């Protein structure tokens, strides 16, 4: 069976070459992702002469690298499986007759399945080995991208990992086999008669059980997505669910729409190019399922990139909205101000890994005696930081924050603390809200109390500050620098802008990486699918050629078909994106006018344009090449290769 599989791969090398390239690309990405993931699992960096905040930052960056590479690995596996399933479906659909002939000469269906599985194992193993072996080359630029996207640090060690490479080969082979198993359903319905007769055309406008099932699944996803959002399901999850559900429903119903679209374009273009327009129209109209399948990678790509873009834009709006809720916070001091105390350093050197520090810094107006009054406290949970959203409310209500008396501390809502100034003045402070943030909000007072237990990976930082009303930034900075020379102090407005931009930069890099990866793979899939479909049409092209169609007319027909497929894909994805956007609008209604989902029209148009160009190039090049090759091989007559000098 292995020998037979190898022969089959060799004979179908044109189709399998594209599949092998996809698998190699997948293994390259997976091998490098897993290598980076492994090297960030136990990050190696020295703690000597480092501030605790630096150590913590490096640890967080290592975690962020691990999270990102893990996500990339999963995405690669899922996308590879999908592309393999899609491509194998096309390849098997074209090999139906050949497989039916094997059935005719005595192969059982199980043997056919085994043949396909063997083919996928051989091709995936070879391609995955090439990809995995090449993946160390990708590690350096990949780690640079991680650093650029604030998901890594040049001080962390990123290196190839042999175990990760072996695992990546295994995972890619497994995902290819799963993809092949998903595609095998194409030959489950194979009948013997197909060996001698063409299968009867199935009216794909009729609702098959499978399509009804898919529509139900799509509506279920939409139903779940429209449940009230809460702790279990944020708007991000509900958006993704809506996008997925809408895409499934629309793709399942697409064969109903394809004939109308192809008819419309066909009529529109028939005065310019009657023959090619008719050929393209018939191809798309008579096989709406095939047209929809061709448009599927396009739909998924457009939906995926648009949803990413929507989430990014909305994340930005949300960030601004939440940041502006922290009214009356005058100054921000970055967390770099935490230093080892001598005692801490000694403890760490003794390898006890436990240290504690306490310091109190006051701004000038703190020195002015005031009557006792409660200070509103926003508690910070440094254990639970978020990466790009500066602040999100965990407990309490930020509207309870009183005027300019805002400070940050750690604790729970209702906790009271007494803070004493160097001059002996005391203030009672009360926690009114708890927020998650990785940024340290400061004002008049800075209380710094940190406990470090590095052996148990615990860092408990208690920070307190209060709004510095009426004190200029320069004075405040000078006071802070008396005890924290390296601290960065900025005004509230500057800080919000700076952090939001920094967060957005990081987010945009991550999104560009994700969307870029998805785009490369999806475009590859688009080329592969379309190319396989065109190659399968050699005989038809030969017939058209023989009945008088010129090469340029064949290319025109291909180009018109591309337009039809693009229009089908764009219209259907626009529908799915609109539904998704509407869902996001409902989710974010409570955020008022500040946060609005932005329909990514520009990104959508750019991506559609890239897809159009890619498909046009494939259509024209392959149309030109096939019209030469098919005539040369004389596939229409299924005859032998013409000898030199033989008239054709």
């Amino acid at each position, binding site marked *: 069976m292995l020998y037979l599989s190898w022969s089959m791969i060799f004979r179908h090398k044109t189709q399998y070459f594209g599949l092998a390239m996809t698998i190699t690309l997948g293994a390259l990405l997976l091998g490098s992702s897993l290598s980076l993931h492994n090297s960030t699992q136990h990050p190696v960096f020295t703690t000597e002469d480092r501030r605790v905040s630096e150590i913590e930052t490096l640890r967080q960056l290592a975690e962020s690298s691990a999270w990102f590479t893990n996500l990339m690995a999963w995405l690669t596996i899922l996308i590879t499986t999908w592309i393999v399933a899609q491509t194998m479906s096309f390849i098997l659909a074209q090999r139906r007759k050949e497989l039916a002939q094997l059935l005719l000469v005595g192969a059982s269906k199980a043997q056919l399945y085994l043949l396909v599985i063997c083919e996928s194992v051989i091709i995936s193993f070879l391609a995955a080995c090439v990809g995995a072996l090449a993946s160390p080359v990708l590690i350096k630029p990949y780690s640079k991208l991680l650093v650029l996207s604030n998901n890594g640090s040049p001080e962390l060690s990123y290196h190839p990992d042999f175990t990760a490479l072996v695992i990546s080969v295994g995972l890619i082979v497994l995902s290819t086999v799963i993809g092949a198993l998903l595609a095998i359903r194409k030959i489950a319905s194979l009948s*013997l008669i197909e060996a001698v007769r063409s299968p009867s055309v199935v009216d794909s406008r009729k609702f098959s059980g499978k399509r009804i099932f898919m529509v139900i699944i799509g509506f279920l996803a939409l139903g779940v997505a429209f449940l009230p959002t809460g702790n279990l399901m944020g708007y991000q999850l509900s958006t993704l669910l809506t996008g997925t559900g809408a895409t499934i429903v629309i793709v399942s119903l697409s064969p109903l729409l394809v004939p109308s679209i192809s008819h419309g374009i066909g009529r529109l273009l028939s005065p310019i190019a009657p023959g090619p327009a008719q050929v393209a129209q018939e191809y798309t109209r008579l096989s709406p399922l095939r047209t929809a399948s061709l448009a599927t990678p396009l739909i998924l790509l457009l939906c995926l990139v648009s949803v990413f873009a929507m989430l990014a834009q909305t994340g930005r709006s949300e960030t601004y909205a939440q940041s502006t809720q922290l009214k009356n916070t005058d100054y921000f001091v970055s967390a770099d101000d935490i230093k080892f105390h001598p005692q801490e350093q000694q403890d760490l050197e003794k390898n006890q890994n436990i240290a504690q520090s306490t310091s109190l810094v006051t701004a000038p107006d703190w020195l002015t005696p005031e009557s006792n009054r409660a200070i509103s406290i926003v508690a910070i949970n440094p254990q639970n930081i978020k990466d790009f959203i500066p602040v999100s409310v965990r407990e309490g209500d930020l509207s309870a924050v009183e005027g300019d008396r805002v400070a940050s501390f750690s604790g729970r809502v209702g906790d009271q603390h007494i803070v004493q100034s160097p001059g002996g003045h005391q203030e009672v402070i009360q926690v009114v809200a708890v927020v998650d943030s990785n940024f340290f909000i400061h004002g008049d007072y800075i209380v710094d109390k940190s406990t470090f237990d590095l052996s148990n990976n615990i860092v408990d930082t208690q920070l307190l500050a209060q709004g510095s009303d009426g004190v200029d930034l320069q004075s405040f900075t000078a006071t802070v620098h008396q005890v924290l020379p390296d601290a960065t102090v900025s005004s509230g407005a500057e800080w919000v802008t700076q952090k939001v931009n920094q967060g957005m930069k990081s987010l945009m890099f991550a999104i560009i990486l994700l969307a870029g990866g998805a785009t490369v793979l999806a475009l590859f899939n688009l080329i592969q699918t379309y190319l396989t479909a065109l190659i399968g049409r050699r005989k038809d092209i030969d017939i058209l050629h023989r009945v008088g169609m010129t090469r340029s007319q064949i290319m025109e027909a291909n180009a018109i078909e591309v337009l039809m497929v693009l229009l089908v894909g764009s219209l259907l994805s626009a529908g799915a994106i609109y539904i998704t956007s509407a869902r996001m609008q409902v989710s974010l209604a409570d955020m008022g006018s500040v946060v609005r989902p932005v329909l990514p029209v520009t990104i959508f148009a750019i991506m559609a344009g890239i897809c159009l160009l890619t498909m046009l190039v494939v259509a024209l090049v392959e149309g030109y090449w096939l019209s030469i090759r098919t005539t040369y091989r004389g596939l229409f007559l299924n005859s032998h290769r013409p000898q030199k000098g033989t008239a054709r």
Partner: protein
Amino acid sequence: MQPLDIKNLSFTYPNNDKDTLTDINLSIAPGEWVAIMGPSGSGKSTILLCASGLLPATADTLAINGLDILHATKKQLALLRRRKLGYIFQELNLVPALTVAQNIAISFTLDKTKVTPSNISQALHQVGLENVENKLPHELSGGQQQRVAIARTLISDPAIVFADEPTGALDTDNGEQVLQLFEKLTAQQKSILMVTHDPNVAARANRIVWVVDGQIISTLEGGNPTQIAQQLANIGEAK
């Protein structure tokens, strides 16, 4: 054991109100060559496809080499096709991705048994082909491909061969070679059920079954091409 035994076979194509075949009864003895003839659209090829198990028909009995194919398991049917049936169609049923040698040895490969290269060469020699083992089907002419299909049948030693217009796409010389090979097969006690519209080809068979409107109306044994052509013309006029 009869290579083929059909009793009361009927068949209707999907989305077709009228029966394509009605009450077909046909038995073939070992070494017998039976030709099916009739006007276009009479159901000749459909009988062949149903009898060979390619189309799902209903019948009281439909047995090939003693196996009731209506109630056989999928595995039994696969083994039957692999070991006891030969198919030679106008469509040239060679797997395009496999070489001539691989095509000839395919039933052995599927059976996980081996066939020696000399056996393959011998089978090819019997059908008048030399040094084509490593060629792909598309590198051969139609007649050569047809002969490779016959070589595959010869090497797998089937009980019955189903042939649909086996000489339809061939020139006179190639067609004659194929018919001579069929005679060799019957000499080896292999039966043949063949569909043809050519009286000269049908005249080589032991028995001719006449089909009109999906029913067998008569049989003719030992007819010459002129008689057969006359009968075919009569049936056409009567219709």
